[in-house]
């Protein structure tokens, strides 16, 4: 199974069309390997993006440099995946 240790999901708040466009520019940078869970749509609509560990720093620096607000929605994706897997195994064991 693909490993998501250190991957973070950022919730970005773009306040105007310029900021939405800036985030869209990020989408085109393939080397960042960004995975938009909620794509850049309209100002005020949350943008959720999974950022691989190797890109986290660069993305945060970029957002801060252009004054785009964000918060960390998921601090470590792998932790949630482990919890999900654990829950499935537990419920399977219980039903057996």
């Amino acid at each position: 199974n693909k490993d998501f240790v250190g991957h973070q999901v950022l919730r970005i708040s773009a306040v105007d069309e310029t900021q939405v466009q800036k985030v869209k520019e990020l989408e085109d940078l393939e080397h960042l390997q960004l995975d938009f869970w909620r794509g850049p749509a309209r100002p005020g609509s949350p943008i959720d993006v999974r950022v691989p560990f190797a890109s986290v720093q660069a993305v945060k620096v970029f957002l801060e440099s252009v004054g785009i607000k964000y918060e960390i929605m998921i601090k470590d994706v792998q932790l949630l995946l482990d919890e999900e897997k654990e829950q499935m195994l537990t419920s399977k064991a219980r039903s057996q």
Partner: protein
Amino acid sequence: ARSTDTFNYATYHTLEEIYGFIDLLVAENPKFISKIQIGNTYEGRPIYVLKFSTGGNNRPAIWIDTGIHSREWVTQASAVWFAKKITEDYGQDPAFSAILDNMDIFLEIVTNPDGFAFTHSKNRMWRKTRSRIAGSSCVGVDPNRNWDAGFGKGGSSSNPCSETYHGKFANSESEVKSIVDFVQNHGNIKAFISIHSYSQLLLYPYGYKNEAAPDEKELDQLAKSAVSALASLYGTKFEYGSIIKTIYQASGSTVDWTYSQGIKYSYTFELRDTGRYGFLLPASQIIPTAKETWLALLTIMEHTLNHPY
């Protein structure tokens, strides 16, 4: 599980467990439910649709599908709960029984089996199909950009490595073509509801163009009723509107195609997450999500029954 009464609806299941549930449900309701194989996936897995019917021949029908984007696990899990709910409520709930006394329901629980199996085995975040693309090292097509409605226009990507890659041509994906063929052969589907997650939206055509759908007024009114029925249970707030106005341009999408086929009540749901889990919604929220969504589905189904066209 030995029966669908002991099946655990409050946890996520693998493809094999869901297909096992389907067989159990059919075996327990042989006169009411049948399993139809509408095709095979790219990797050769069977694609199943459950048909709920109380008789008649080629009755007007309602189509519900989930999991076209494989990582949206709460949708397939909710559909498993819907399937059981249908068997429990028919004959008990008068309003719902009236629907099934006059219409059939088709429910496709795992619309992207290859992708779903891949989320369990290799990559939980996988969204697309698993088809191989000649000339590219990237895999998969976005099955919600592969339909023949505004195909290839703005709001989809021609890059095979993109999550919204539309594919080489419309209906290139067997997971899509199987539904296209089924819908066109059936010819009497009156409502088509494709369920995604997440972001709490109820959307109707169009996605690929700004023009208002001819039935926009009615679709908007019905969406408003459906989202208030949904919110009545736990207060979960949904926005509603056309795809392009509510989120962004999306071309080649399912409901733009079904609407172009004359299926007036064509809707896309985006279910929970109300918080900060996104696609990793905890299993504890499966049943609440399914229950609130069911109220919205009932609203759309009743309207469809009461407004024949």
